[in-house]
C-alpha cells in the first residue's frame, strides 16, 4: 500500500498552493488589473494542476463528476475511505 505520510505530504502541498491561489483570486476580484498578481495566479494554476495529476494517479480522485480520473480500471475509487472529515 501507499505510505500515508507521503500521501499527506503531497496533499498538504496541494493545500498550500491552492490556498495561495485562493488568496490571489479574492485579491484579484477587487484588483482585476494587477498584472503581477495575475502572473502569480497563473503560475500557481500550473503547479496545482501538476501536483493534482500526480496525487490522483497515486491515491485516487480529488474531484468527481468528471473533473478527476478514476485511475483504477476495476474499482470505483471515489468512495474510498477516508473522507476529509474523518481524522486519520
Amino acid at each position, binding site marked *: 500500500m501507499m505510505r500515508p505520510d507521503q500521501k499527506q505530504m503531497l496533499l498538504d502541498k496541494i493545500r498550500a498552493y491552492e490556498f495561495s491561489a485562493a488568496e490571489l483570486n479574492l485579491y484579484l476580484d477587487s484588483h*482585476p488589473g494587477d498584472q503581477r498578481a495575475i502572473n502569480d495566479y497563473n503560475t500557481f494554476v500550473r503547479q496545482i494542476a501538476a501536483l493534482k495529476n500526480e496525487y490522483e494517479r497515486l491515491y485516487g480522485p480529488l474531484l468527481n463528476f468528471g473533473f478527476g480520473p478514476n485511475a483504477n480500471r476495476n474499482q470505483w475509487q471515489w468512495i474510498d475511505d477516508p473522507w476529509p472529515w474523518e481524522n486519520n
Partner: protein
Amino acid sequence: MWIYEKKLQYPVRIKKPNPKMAAAILSQYGGPDGELAASLRYISQRHHMPIPEAKGMLNDIGTEELAHFEMVGSMVHQLMKGATIDQIKAAGVESWYTDHDRATWPGTGTGVPFTASYIMSKGDPIADLTEDMAAEQKARATYEHLIDLADDPDVIDPLRWLREREVVHFQRFGEILNKLYEWKDSKKYF
C-alpha cells in the same frame, strides 16, 4: 455549479473527544454568525450585485465559506466521535445526545436550529456589503471566544486559521464597498 473536492481547505486532526467544546463550536456550524449563514448570505446577495468585482467577490467568498462550513463540521464530528456517555454527561450535553446521539447538526449547542433570519439580502448593494463586513467581524469575534474556551492545540490551530480568514474577508468586502460607492456616484453624474 459546485464541484466537491475531496479534501479540507485546512486540515482538522483532533485526537481527543470533548463534547463541551463540540457544543461551543457548533455555533459556527449552524449558529447566528456561523459559516452556513455566511455562505448562504453571500451566495444569495451575489445575484443583484451591479459590478463585476462585487459579483465575483460574493460568489468566491460564499464558496470559501462552504469549505469553512465543512471544516467546522469536521471539528464538531471529531470532538463528538469517541465521546463516552460519562463524558457527555460531565459536559452537560445530554440534550444533544437525546436528539442527535453524537451527530453534527446545523444549529447551536443549546439546540437552537439554523434559521434564515440570521441573514439578510436587502437588494441594496451598499446595505448588503455593509452587513457582510459586520458579519465578518462577528465571525472573527466568535472565533476569538472559541479560542478563549479551547485548550487543545489541535482545536486551537484550525480556529486560529478560520479567524484569520474572517479578517481577510472583511478587508476584501471593504474594497468592494468602496467600489460600490464609486459606482453609485458614477450613476448620479453620467
